[in-house]
Every structure is written in C-alpha cells, then in structure tokens.
C-alpha cells in the first residue's frame, strides 16, 4: 500500500451531499478482475455526457482542478455499496485525500486500505475549506497526517482526529493481513475454544 505522510495539492470542491458509490463508479465498470485502471471511469456519469465527451461544468474537468489530489466533499460521502472499486478509481485518478463532515462506514475503511486519507471535520471547517477550494488552482491545501493538521489556502489551520491504528498503517504503508497473521496463536486458541463451546459455529 502507498504511504501517506504529507501532501500539498490543489483541492477540488464537490459540495453535493450523499455522493454514493454508484456515482463514484457505476456498476457497469465493476466487471473487472483487476484493481487497476479504474480512474477513467471515476464519476463517469458526472464527468461525461451520453456521447462520452467531458462535461465542462463538472469540477474535475475544469482546468483549474485537473491536477487536484484532494476533494472537499459534501456530507455522507461514499454511501451505498461496499465496492472497493470506488477508492480504486479515486486512487487511480490521483485523489489521495478527501475531507468531509461525514463518510459512509464501509467506504471509509476501504479508502484507508488503499492509501487514501479520509478526514472528518466539523461542518463549519468543511465550509471554510470548501470556500478555499472554490478559488481554484492557486489555492492549495496542505495535509500533514503525522501532525494531524490541515493548512488551508489562507493559512488557517484545522486539526483532525484519526484512529491511531489507521494512522500508523497509512504513515508506514503497512499490509494489515501480515500484521494479523502474527496473531495466529490467538486466532487458533479462539477457534479451539469455539469448537468446545459452540460446535455449530
């Protein structure tokens, strides 16, 4: 997994609330057996018209935001299905960090497994960063995971909370399957206990 420590990048504003995983990547693009190459289908219906031409009014199609690596998003971002194709598409497109007032749970977990940092902030802070993001390519945001701090375009600083386990995995690019396998002794002991007490399970 890609590490994430510090990022200074253009942030794109996407104030729509309840952006669901079908919007992030429609189901017809899930017929793949690979994790890669999904960036071209990201936000497909919002980004492209029926003929496959870019929609000029969609934020990531605007010149100012072509290189955005951060999204400032509306409430309840990523609701809907458990498809990890959503973070795969975001990551492949180049998005490394999303800031919102809330995220759907499964999407939240999935993103961290793919090196994408999701930051929850109070609505008023999101509103300020949204305003900053709306100013376009000159306004960059700096996200420092280690210090748990965001510096906005006007040097405003916002602190954020993050689960220490997720933070550590992201900072070091750790594969959590490997970490869990080190607990084999405990898993085995649990299974033995279960066999004795609840053989049907």
């Amino acid at each position, binding site marked *: 997994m890609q590490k994430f420590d510090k990022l200074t990048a253009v942030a794109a504003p996407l104030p729509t609330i309840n952006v669901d995983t079908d919007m992030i990547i429609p*189901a017809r693009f899930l*017929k793949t057996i690979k994790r890669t190459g999904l960036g071209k289908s990201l936000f497909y219906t919002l980004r492209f018209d029926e003929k496959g031409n870019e929609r000029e009014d969609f934020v990531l199609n605007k010149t100012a935001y072509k290189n955005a690596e951060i999204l400032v998003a509306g409430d309840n971002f990523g609701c809907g299905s458990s498809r990890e194709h959503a973070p795969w598409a975001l990551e492949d497109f180049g998005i490394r960090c999303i800031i919102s007032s809330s995220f*759907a749970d499964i999407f939240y977990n999935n993103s961290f497994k793919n090196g994408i940092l999701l930051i929850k902030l109070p609505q008023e802070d999101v509103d300020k960063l949204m305003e900053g993001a709306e100013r376009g390519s000159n306004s960059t945001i700096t996200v420092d995971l280690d210090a748990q701090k965001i510096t906005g375009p006007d040097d405003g600083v916002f602190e954020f909370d993050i689960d220490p386990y997720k933070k550590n995995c992201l900072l070091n690019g750790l594969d*959590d399957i490997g970490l*869990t396998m080190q607990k084999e002794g405990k898993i085995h002991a649990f299974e033995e206990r279960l066999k004795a007490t609840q053989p*049907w*399970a």
Partner: protein
Amino acid sequence: MNRPTTLYDKIWESHLVDERDDGTCLLYIDRHLVHEVTSPQAFEGLRNTKRSVRRPDLTLAVADHNVPTSDRSIGIEDEESRIQIEALDQNCADFGVELYDMNDIRQGICHVIGPEQGFTLPGTTMVCGDSHTATHGAFGCLAFGIGTSEVEHVLATQTMIQTKAKNMRVTVDGELPIGVTAKDMILAIIGEIGTAGGTGCVVEFAGEAVRALSVEGRMTMCNMTIEAGARAGLIAPDEKTFEYLKGRPKSPKGSTWEASVECWKTLKTDNDASFDIEITLQGGDIIPQVTWGTSPEDVLPITERVPHPTDETDPNRRKKMERSLEYMGLEPGLPLKEIKIDRMFIGSCTNSRIEDLRAAAQVADGRKVADHVSAMVVPGSGLVKEQAEQEGLDKVFIEAGFDWREPGCSMCLGMNPDKLAPGERSASTSNRNFEGRQGPGGRTHLLSPAMAAAAAIKGYLTDVRDLGVD
C-alpha cells in the same frame, strides 16, 4: 453484577480475538459469503502473497450479480461478465471453496441463499463483500458488508479488524395496518432518520411490530439498514427464527441442534441495557411508502405529493432535491399516485423471497399488467423459484403478463442485461434508487412487492390498499 449489555455487545464480546490499547479489535468471523464481483482481486492478492484460505469450510461462494436471468443454456454472452464468473469458478477450485454455480438449483442472491441453506445462524458473525450483508441480522447474526481488501483479510485470517460501533435501537410499537409491510416499515424508518442516520452504529430493531414480522420480513428490514448508513442491523432470534432454520442443509442437527437453540435463546438485549441512540415509531401510523428521489431517504407515503424544494431550508439539501427531481423528471406538487411507470421489477435481496412473491401474486391474480408497462419477476434463488412454481405463482404472474425469470441480482444493479433505458421509470422492490443504479439515466421508485405489482397493473404508482387486497 455484570453490566447490562445489548445483543450487539454480546455477539461482539464473544468474538473478540484480540483488543489493542487504542480500541482496535480483531474479531473472529464465523461465516463468509463470496460472490464474483468483489472477490477476484482478493483471491489475486492471496496468490501474489502465497497465502491460502484459512477456513474454506466457513466460506461459501455463489455467482449472483452478473448472471443472466434469461435462458442460461446459451451461457453468458457478455464477455466481461463471463470472465468474472469464470474467475470465481477457478478461484473456488484453486482455494477449495464450496461454490453454487449458475446452473446449481441452490444458486441465487448471496443474501437469499445464506439463510436458505442454514449457513446464517444466530449469534454468529458473518461478512460478505456486499453492503447488504446486513440482511443476515434478521437471525441475530452480526453481519457486515466489507470491501475487497477486507475480503482478502478474512479469507487469509478468518478475522477482521474493527473498532466497536455505537448501539442504536429502533423500536416500532403497535401493529402495522393492513397492506403495510416490512418494506414500508424500513422505508419509513430511513425517511425518519436519513441515509446517514445510522452511521457508526449497529441498529437493533425491536418492538411489537418487528416481533410480529415473519423471518423473511425481518430480512427485508435488516437488509436496508445499510441504506440508513448503519454498519449492521440486528433482530433478536426467537421461536420463528429457530423454526425457519430447523432442518436446513447447513443448520446444526440432532443433539447439537438442541444445544444451539438453548444457547440462541439467551441472545437478547438485557432489559436495562442502554443505547447511544433510541428511536421509536408507531407501527399504526405507517402508510405504504414510495420513494420520489435518488436516495432511499427521499421517501413518502403514497398518499402524498412530490415535495417542493422551496420548503427545504438547508441550501445543500435543497440543491440535492432540485437535482433529484430533475433527474427523476418530476414536478413538485404532483400526487405520487399520478406518476406513470414504464417498468416494474420484483426481485433483489430485499424482496425476492417466497413471501414477497406470494404477496405480489395475490395482487396480480386475475388482473393484467397495464399495456404500457413491462414487468419482470426475478426470484431470489433457484429454490425460491422452484417453490413458487410448485405453488403455481409462476402461472399467476405469466397469465397477468409478468415476465418470470431465472434467479440473480438482475435489475437491482443492472450489471447483467436487465436494465432500464435512459429516462425509463420503474417501480422496483430493490433497495437503491441512486442515479443510474438500474441503468444509466433510469428512474427508480422503491416500494414493497405488493405495491410494485399494483403499480404494474395500474400503470401508475398506486396505493395497494385501493385494490382491496391485504
């Protein structure tokens, strides 16, 4: 004395393998359902790291999302779908996982076949790479939808890393009026708390109206818990649950059955346990529900009208509402009963079980689908289909002009050829009305199976109670 705990607390605590100081827990997973869309990359990950499936005996795979629901003897025409299904066959063969393939009578939507086979059991933990895994909560099984990386984690270690969720309880008191179903109840709850109302929570459903539901009705409710943003839904098991599971192929047998039932009887929230969030609704107030927008929370009683964005004070919500109405092609103020439909879909893991089909068939019996409507019924599994045919429901549907199809996810998400054309409007028993969910540009109204059948017959969204059926 021990602190009073909730059903969720009990199942959680009994599955803890490890707990770190920071609260991150390793939870043991008793059952894992696997399907073709979210698993190929997980198996690929295992191969790349030379890992194996730790407990193939606790893992069950099925092809459901991509399978055609028309004649299967000709195979799968769509190449990408075929490759994905072949990959599942190969992965299951390589890693020793039991698979119900497309031609197996037991094949069906993963959340339908789990309970049907007795793979889903009370007091256990279950995961599946699919958000509607919440369905299995109807049995008092703690069931989570997970992403592909987590699927790989569970395949390799039979555990998952999680922090504990908050406890939320939704109580529905009283009795549901005639013509009001589990689907209406859960839609009404989502309308009340919103699609993010359960975020970070495991929701237990309780109260007289919930207890009165059949096990299948409870599955419909728990299925849509994810649409309220919750991590899982739970209903305490009772005699109905045990009765449903008794004798299923994978249910415990003989003396183990007796012992398991004794243990399952203890699975309930203690009287004085406290919840972080409590919501109470009156069952008697619920009216058949239908969605008007592009989020399951955009829901109203069928007796209402399309809402006015001008009545919404929050600017972001107003914008979302305007966009939804534009997408749905609806004018504010239009009575919901005047919305004309083109298609009707009965199916999905929310409403494709035998009782759903019976309820729809009761409405369809002796009537005809409106001329301008194309209606399809997709049973949840091969066994549901077989049972329905034994009961003659297929004939009722076919005579009324419904299309009777093979089991699978079908038009719930339109990954196979069953989809809406741009602008087409469907009355659907599935669970998501997101933009493009049932096909690019398609417009979805969510409702119960009886309401869907009524809409197909009238050609408009309809209050099933007006047709005089219960």
